[in-house]
C-alpha cells in the first residue's frame, strides 16, 4: 500500500487533538478551583477559563475523529485521498482559526453564544474548512467498489450534519430568531443537541471501525445491528434534542416527542461493543492491548451514562436535575468516558499498527497507570457531580450562596478528582503524542517503514 499526504496529515490532526485535550484539561482544573475559590487566578477569570476548557476539549474530539478518518481511508481502506492538499489546507485553517479563537478568549473578546463564544465572524473559516473536508471525504469514499460499511455512512452523515447544525447555531444572527427569547434559546439548543449528535456519528463510526479491525471481522461494520445503530443515531440527532429545553416554555409535543426518542442509540452501541468483546480471541486482546482497554472503558461508561441519561430524559425527573451539576456529570461522562475513550482507542490502534512492538512496548505500564488513574478519578468526579447536582436540585431555599455552601464538600471532591483525572490523561496523552511522533519521524524506526519514508 502506498502512503499519501493523507496519512501524515491524519497523524498531525491526532497529535494536535492530543495537545488540545492536554490544555483543555488544564483549563478545566483551573475552572474547577475557581468554582470553589472565585478569587483564584483573577487574571484569567472563569468567563475565560470555561470557554477555553470547553472549546479545547471539543476541538480534541473533532481533531482526533477527523485525523482518524484522514488516516484510515488511505492507510486501512485502500482509498487514497482525492484531494491530499485540501487535507493539509484543512489542518492549517483549523489550527490558525483555533489559535485566533483561543487568543480572543484569553483577551476577553467574546460576542457569540454559549459554547461558541468567539466573535461570530470566526465561524466562517470553520464552516469553509468543513466544506473542504466534506468534498474531500465524499470524493474519496465514492471510489469504493464495495457497498459502504456502516462507518462510511456515519462519518459522511457526521460531516453533513455538522454543516447543517453549525449553520443552525448561528440563526440567532437573524432578527426573526433573535427577537424572540424563547424561540432563540430553543433553536440554539436544538442545534447543540444535533451538533453533539454529529460528532457522535464521527466518534461512534470510529469505534465500529476500530472494533471491526481489531477483531479482524468486517461483519461487525456490516451487521443489521450496526445499521440499526446508524439509523437510530440519525433519528436521535434529528429529533432527540429537546431534553435540554424541557423547562423552557414550549409546545408540549416537542418535549413528548424528544422524551420518546431519547437515548436509545447508546443502548445499541453498548450492545455492539459488548458482543464484539465477547467475540475476541485471547491473542487479539493482547495484540491490541491499549486500544482494547480504552474501548472496554468506553463500553463501561456507556452503561453508566445510559442510566443517568434515561433518568434525566424523563421530564418529571428533569424538573429536579435540570440546571444542576447532574447535567455536567452527563456531559463529562459522554465527552470523557465515551468519546475520549473511543478516540484514545483509535489513537493506540494506529500506534499498534504503525510501530513495531519493540517501540510501542505492547501494553505499556505507564499507559496502564494513566488509564486506571483516568477511569478511577473520572468515576469519583462523576459521582461528586451527581451528589452536588442532587444537593442543588433538592435545595428549596432562595439563597444561591447558601445552596453553594451546602454542596461545597461535593465540589471539593470534584475539584481534587479533576486534578487526578488531568494527571491520568496527561500520562496517556504524553505516550500517545510521543509514539505518534515516531510514526511521523523521518528517521526510520527499527523494523518499521515510517510514513514519511513511504511518502518519499
Amino acid at each position, binding site marked *: 500500500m502506498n502512503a499519501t499526504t493523507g496519512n501524515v496529515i491524519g497523524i498531525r490532526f491526532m497529535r494536535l487533538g492530543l495537545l488540545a485535550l492536554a490544555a483543555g484539561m488544564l483549563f478545566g482544573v483551573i475552572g474547577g478551583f475557581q468554582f470553589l475559590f472565585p478569587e483564584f487566578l483573577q487574571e484569567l477569570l472563569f468567563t475565560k477559563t470555561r470557554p477555553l476548557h470547553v472549546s479545547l476539549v471539543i476541538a480534541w474530539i473533532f481533531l482526533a475523529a477527523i485525523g482518524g478518518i484522514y488516516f484510515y481511508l488511505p492507510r486501512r481502506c485502500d482509498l487514497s485521498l482525492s484531494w491530499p492538499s485540501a487535507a493539509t489546507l484543512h489542518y492549517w485553517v483549523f489550527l490558525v482559526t483555533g489559535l485566533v479563537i483561543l487568543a480572543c478568549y484569553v483577551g476577553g473578546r467574546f460576542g457569540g453564544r454559549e459554547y461558541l463564544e468567539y466573535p461570530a465572524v470566526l465561524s466562517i473559516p470553520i464552516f469553509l474548512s468543513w466544506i473542504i473536508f466534506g468534498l474531500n471525504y465524499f470524493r474519496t469514499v465514492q471510489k469504493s467498489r464495495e457497498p459502504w460499511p456502516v462507518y462510511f455512512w456515519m462519518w459522511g452523515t457526521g460531516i453533513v450534519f455538522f454543516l447543517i447544525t453549525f449553520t443552525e447555531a448561528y440563526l440567532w444572527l437573524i432578527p426573526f430568531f433573535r*427577537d424572540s427569547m424563547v424561540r432563540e434559546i430553543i433553536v440554539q439548543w436544538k442545534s447543540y443537541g444535533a451538533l453533539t449528535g454529529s460528532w457522535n456519528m464521527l466518534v461512534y463510526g470510529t469505534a465500529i471501525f476500530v472494533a471491526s479491525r481489531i477483531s479482524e471481522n468486517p461483519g461487525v461494520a456490516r451487521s443489521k445491528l450496526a445499521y440499526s445503530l446508524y439509523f437510530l443515531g440519525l433519528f436521535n440527532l434529528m429529533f432527540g434534542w429537546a431534553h435540554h429545553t424541557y423547562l423552557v416554555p414550549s409546545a408540549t409535543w416537542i418535549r413528548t416527542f424528544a422524551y420518546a426518542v431519547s437515548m436509545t442509540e447508546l443502548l445499541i452501541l453498548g450492545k455492539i461493543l459488548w458482543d464484539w468483546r465477547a467475540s475476541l480471541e485471547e491473542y487479539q486482546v493482547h495484540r491490541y492491548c491499549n486500544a482494547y482497554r480504552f474501548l472496554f472503558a468506553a463500553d463501561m461508561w456507556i452503561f453508566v451514562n445510559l442510566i443517568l441519561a434515561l433518568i434525566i430524559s424523563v421530564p418529571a425527573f428533569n424538573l429536579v436535575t435540570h440546571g444542576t451539576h447532574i447535567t455536567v456529570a452527563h456531559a463529562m461522562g459522554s465527552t470523557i468516558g465515551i468519546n475520549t475513550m473511543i478516540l484514545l482507542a483509535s489513537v493506540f490502534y494506529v500506534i499498534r499498527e504503525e510501530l513495531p512492538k519493540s517501540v510501542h512496548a505492547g501494553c505499556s505500564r505507564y499507559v496502564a497507570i494513566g488509564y486506571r488513574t483516568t477511569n478511577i478519578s473520572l468515576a469519583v468526579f462523576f459521582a461528586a457531580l451527581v451528589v452536588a447536582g442532587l444537593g442543588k436540585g433538592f435545595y428549596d431555599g432562595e439563597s444561591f450562596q447558601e445552596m453553594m455552601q451546602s454542596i461545597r464538600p461535593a465540589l471539593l471532591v470534584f475539584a481534587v478528582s479533576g486534578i487526578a483525572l488531568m494527571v491520568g490523561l496527561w500520562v496517556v496523552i504524553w505516550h500517545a503524542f510521543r509514539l505518534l511522533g515516531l510514526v511521523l519521524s523521518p528517521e526510520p524506526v527499527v523494523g518499521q517503514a515510517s510514513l514519511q519514508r513511504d511518502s518519499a
Partner: protein
Amino acid sequence: MCAAFAVYSAVVYTSGTETPHLEPISEPARAGQQVFQEYNCIACHQFYGLGGYMGPDLTNVISKRGPIYARAFIASGSARMPNFKLSEPEISALIEYLTFVDGTGSYPPENYQVNWYGTVVQEDDPQ
C-alpha cells in the same frame, strides 16, 4: 427521514416556540443582549437553567429581586462575581434585557402539571 427533519425544524422555528403574550424585544434590551454576550455572562449564569453554574439563574432576577438589586450587583460585583467595570449605559441596557427575559416565563416553573407518563405541562407553554 431528511424531509421529516426539514419539516420538523420548520415547525419548531415557527409554531412550537412562540411567546404570543410578549412584546418584541426593544432596542435598549437588544443592546443589553449584546452586552450580555460581549462579557460572556452565560459562562457563569443561566437562563431557564441553561448556562454556567458559577452564579445564579437570572431568568426571573428582576421580578424576584428587583432592578435596583440587580443594578447594585452588576455595578459593584460580589464575592463570587468580579466588578466588570461596566459603564452606566451598559448597566442600564443589561437591566432592560433582564427585564425582557423576565417577561418570557418563569424558572423554575411555578405552575405545572406532571402527566402520568412523565411529561410536564407548564403554565407558560404556548397553547
